[in-house]
C-alpha cells in the first residue's frame, strides 16, 4: 500500500508543525488562561509532555511494524475484526476531527475577516484544494507543506513588533494557587499534542527509518516553542483579560502597528494562517482517506477523496452548533476524548503488540 512514495524527515517536521498549531493557535491561549491564570505561559511546556509520550509510543510501534500504518498494524496486533473496529474508530475520529477543523477555520474567517460571506464558501474551497493535494499523493502534500509552512511560520516574527507594549509583571504571581491550575491548563494543550499520533500514518513513507524518532521529537519541540512564544506574548500583553477573548492571538495581531503607518494587517496574517490550515486539513484528510482505503482493501484511495471531503463538510455542520459550544467542548470533552483515542489506544496497541512479539519469540 505504501508504494514508492517517499518523504524525508524534515518534510515530516514541516507537515507536523502546522498540523498541530493550525487551529491550536486560535483558542488554546484563551482556554488555558481560564484554567491556569497567570501561569498560562508555562502550560505549553507541560502540555508538551503528552506530545513526547505520544511520539515515543508511535516510534515504539513503528519499530515493530515499520511499513504499516496504524490501520494495518491494528489488524496485525488485535486480529482481523477487532483490528478493523479500532481502525474504524481512528477513521471516524479523524473525519469528525477534520470537520471540526474546517468548521473552526470557516467560523474564524467569517466572524473576523469576511463578515458577509457564508461559512460554506470557505469550507468547500479549503476542502477542495486539500482534496486536490491529497489526490496528488503524500509527496505532493509533503512538498507543498514545506513551502506553505515556511511562509506561515515566518509570520510569527510579526508578533515581535509588540515587544515594547508587553508587561512582564503579568507573569506574576508565580504558581499562585499551587500546581493544580497549571496541570489543568496543560491538559487543554494535551488534546492538541496528542495529535502527534498522526505521525504514525506518515512514518511508513519516511525514507530514512533512523530519523523517525528525531523528526517526531523535533516537531514536538518546535510546536512547544511556538505555542510558548505565542502564549507568552498573549499573557504579557493582555494579562488575564485574554481569557475573555475568543481569539486572543488575533486580537494581539490587530493591536500591532508598524511605524504608525502599517496597521490592521491582521488580514494578511489570517491569509497566511490559511496556509497552515491547508496543511492541517490535507494531513487529516489524507489520514482519513487511506484509512477507509486500507480497512476496506480498496485498490486506490484517490477515488474516495472527494466523497470523504463531502462527508467532512457535513461533519463540520453536525459537530457543533456554534462557537460557544465549541469552546465548551474544547474545555470539557476534547482533552479526554483526544487523549484516549490518540495516546491511550496506541499505548494499548503497543502493549499487546509487544506481548505478542515476545510470545512469538518464546515459541
Amino acid at each position, binding site marked *: 500500500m505504501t508504494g514508492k512514495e517517499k518523504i524525508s524527515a524534515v518534510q515530516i517536521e514541516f507537515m507536523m508543525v502546522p498540523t498541530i498549531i493550525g487551529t491550536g493557535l486560535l483558542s488554546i491561549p484563551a482556554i488555558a488562561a481560564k484554567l491556569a491564570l497567570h501561569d498560562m505561559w508555562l502550560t505549553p511546556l507541560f502540555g508538551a509532555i503528552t506530545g513526547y509520550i505520544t511520539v515515543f509510543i508511535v516510534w515504539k510501534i513503528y519499530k515493530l511494524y515499520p511499513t504499516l500504518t496504524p490501520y494495518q498494524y491494528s489488524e496485525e496486533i488485535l486480529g482481523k475484526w477487532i483490528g478493523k473496529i479500532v481502525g474504524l474508530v481512528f477513521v471516524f475520529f479523524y473525519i469528525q476531527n477534520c470537520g471540526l477543523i474546517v468548521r473552526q477555520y470557516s467560523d474564524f474567517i467569517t466572524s473576523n475577516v469576511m463578515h458577509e460571506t457564508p461559512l460554506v464558501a470557505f469550507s468547500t474551497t479549503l476542502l477542495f484544494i486539500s482534496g486536490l493535494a491529497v489526490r496528488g499523493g503524500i509527496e505532493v502534500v509533503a512538498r507543498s507543506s514545506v513551502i506553505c509552512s515556511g511562509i506561515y511560520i515566518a509570520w510569527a516574527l510579526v508578533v515581535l513588533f509588540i515587544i515594547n507594549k508587553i508587561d512582564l509583571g503579568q507573569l506574576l504571581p508565580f504558581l499562585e494557587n499551587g500546581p493544580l491550575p497549571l496541570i489543568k491548563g496543560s491538559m487543554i494543550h494535551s488534546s492538541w499534542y496528542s495529535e502527534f499520533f498522526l505521525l504514525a500514518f506518515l512514518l511508513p513513507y519516511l525514507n530514512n527509518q533512523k530519523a523517525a524518532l528525531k523528526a517526531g521529537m523535533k516537531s514536538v519541540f518546535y510546536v512547544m516553542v511556538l505555542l510558548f512564544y505565542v502564549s507568552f506574548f498573549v499573557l504579557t500583553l493582555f494579562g488575564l483579560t485574554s481569557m475573555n477573548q475568543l481569539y486572543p492571538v488575533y486580537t494581539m495581531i490587530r493591536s500591532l502597528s508598524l511605524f504608525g503607518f502599517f496597521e490592521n494587517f491582521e488580514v494578511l496574517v489570517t491569509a497566511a494562517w*490559511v496556509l497552515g490550515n491547508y496543511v492541517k486539513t490535507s494531513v487529516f484528510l489524507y489520514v482519513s482517506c487511506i484509512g477507509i482505503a486500507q480497512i476496506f482493501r480498496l485498490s486506490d484511495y484517490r477515488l474516495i477523496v472527494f466523497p470523504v471531503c463531502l462527508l467532512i463538510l457535513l461533519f463540520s455542520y453536525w459537530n457543533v452548533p456554534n462557537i460557544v459550544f465549541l469552546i465548551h467542548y474544547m474545555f470539557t470533552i476534547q482533552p479526554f476524548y483526544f487523549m484516549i483515542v490518540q495516546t491511550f489506544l496506541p499505548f494499548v496497541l503497543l502493549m499487546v503488540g509487544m506481548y505478542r512479539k515476545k510470545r512469538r519469540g518464546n515459541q
Partner: protein
Amino acid sequence: MSVLGVKGIIRIRKLPRKSRKKNSGNQAKVHSSQDTPLSGEIEQNIALFSSAFRESPDIIIRKIHTDKLLAAVIYVEGLCDTKKLDEFVLGALISLQEIEETDLLTFIENHLAISKTEHLSKLSDGVNAILLGKPLLLINGCQEALALGLTQFEKRPIEEPKAETSIRGPREGFTETLSTNVSLIRRIIRDPALKIKKLQIGKYTKTDVLICYVEGLVDHTLIEEIENRLKRIDIDGVYESGYLEQFIEDNPYSPFPQVLYTERPDVLSANLLEGRAAILMDGTPFALIAPVSFFSLFQSQEDYYERFWIGTFIRLLRFLFLVISLFLPSTYVAITTFHQEMVPTSLLLNIASAREGVAFPAIVEVFIMELSFEALREAGIRLPRQVGSAVSIVGALVIGEAAVQAGIVSAPMIIVVSITGIASFMVPRYSVGLAIRILRFPIILLGGILGLIGVMLGFILIIIHLCGLRSFGIPYLSPISTLQKNLYRDSLIRAPLWKMNERPHFTGNFNKTRQSEDLKPDPNKGGEEG
C-alpha cells in the same frame, strides 16, 4: 431512443477512423516500393529517380558520357555547391584517362577531391540524400550510388541572440543551421565526452534532431527516456522546437514550461555540464534543455557573469516581482473590495476619491485594464514595425489619462496594471512569463470573490500544482520543496562560484564534484611566487 442515438453517433465516429487506417496502409505500401535497390543499369536508375522527382523543376539530372565512362549527377538546385561540383566532380570525371573495371565505384571515389562521401544502395536513401542537398553520383555498372557531401545553402550568419540579450557575456547565438549550432557547442566544450545522438522526426520534414549530453555527467536513463519520448513523435512535420517540447512534456495540461529553451551556446553548455541533456533541432535557433526545475527558469546567464552580490540581488528581485506580477492585481481587488481597513488612512482616502467617479466595481475595472494591456502587448509583437508606433500611441491613450478622465478606470488601477506589466517582464524566461500572465486572471477572480483568503487559496492551488509537477522525473520545485542539502545556493540566491562545489542535486547525482574545494580567492594563498 437516446441509447440508440448514442450508439449511432459512436458508429459514425468509428467509420472514418477505419478508413483512415486503410489509407495509412496504402501509404506504407507506396513507401515500401521506394525501397527498391538500385540496379547496375544507369538508364534504369535515372528513370527511377526521374519518376520519383516528377514535376520538380529544381531537380537537375546531368549525364556524363565520355568514352570511358557513363555517369550521371542528380542534385537539387540551390541546396548544393555547384561550383565545387563542377570543378571537383564533373571536371575530374571528364578528365579521367583510364579506369579500373574491377572496383569501379571505389576507384572513382578515390579520384574525387571531396572529403565526405557515402555509398548508397537503395532508391529511398538516394532520394533522401538528394533532398538533403547531397549530389548523387550514379555510375553505369555500379550497384551503388555515391552521395557527395557538397551541401551548401543560404544561411543566416551567427548573430547576437535576439530573445536573450545580455550586457556581459558572449554575443553568439544559435542559428537555424544545425551544423553551425553543434560547432558552437563544440567550441565551448572541447572534450570527447560531449556526445550527440541523432534522430529524424517528421514524416515529410524529416527534420534532424540531436540529443546532446556529456558522458559521465548525465544519467543514462534520462537520455534513454528523452530518446524514447522523441521517437514516439510521429507527425507530418516539426517546424520549431516548441513542437518537440509539447510532445515530450510530463504534464501536457500544465501552464508551466517543463523544458527550458535557449538560443545561447554558453547557457546550453553550462546546463550540459550540470548533468542535463539538450535537444537541438534543425531549422530553429532555440535549443531545449531538460530536465529543469522551476528555479532554473529564474536563472539568467548574467547572474553568473557578474559578482555574486549582484546575481543574488537580481534573483531575489525576480522572485519579488514574480509574486507581484502574479498577485498584485488580485490583492488590489481584494483589498479595495473587502479589506479597506488594511490600507493606511491617508492612502485609503486618496484611493477612495480616485475611485469615486468610476462606474465599475474594482474587479471589472481590473479585468478591463488587464485584458486591454494584454491585447496591446500582443498587438505590439505581431504588428509590422511601421504600424507599431501607432499602437503604442493608441495604447498610451487607452491606458493613459483619457481612460481615467472618462471615468472608466481609476488612476491607482493604472499604476497597479503597469507595475504588473513591468513585473511580468522580469522573468528571464519568456515562457514562464506567459504562464504567469494566464494564471493572473483566475486569481483576480478568486480575490474578487473571497478576498485575500481567495488570493491565498489561489496561491496554494498553484503550489499544489507545482509540487505535483515533474520534469523528466525531477520534482519541479526542487531543491526547495524536497529540502536538499545546500538548497538555497543556486536557487533563491546565487552563491559565490567558489562555493558551488557540487552539481545540482537531482541532475548532478551521477558525478557530484564540479570543482575542487577551497577555491576561494585569497591573496595569502599566493602560490609559488609567494
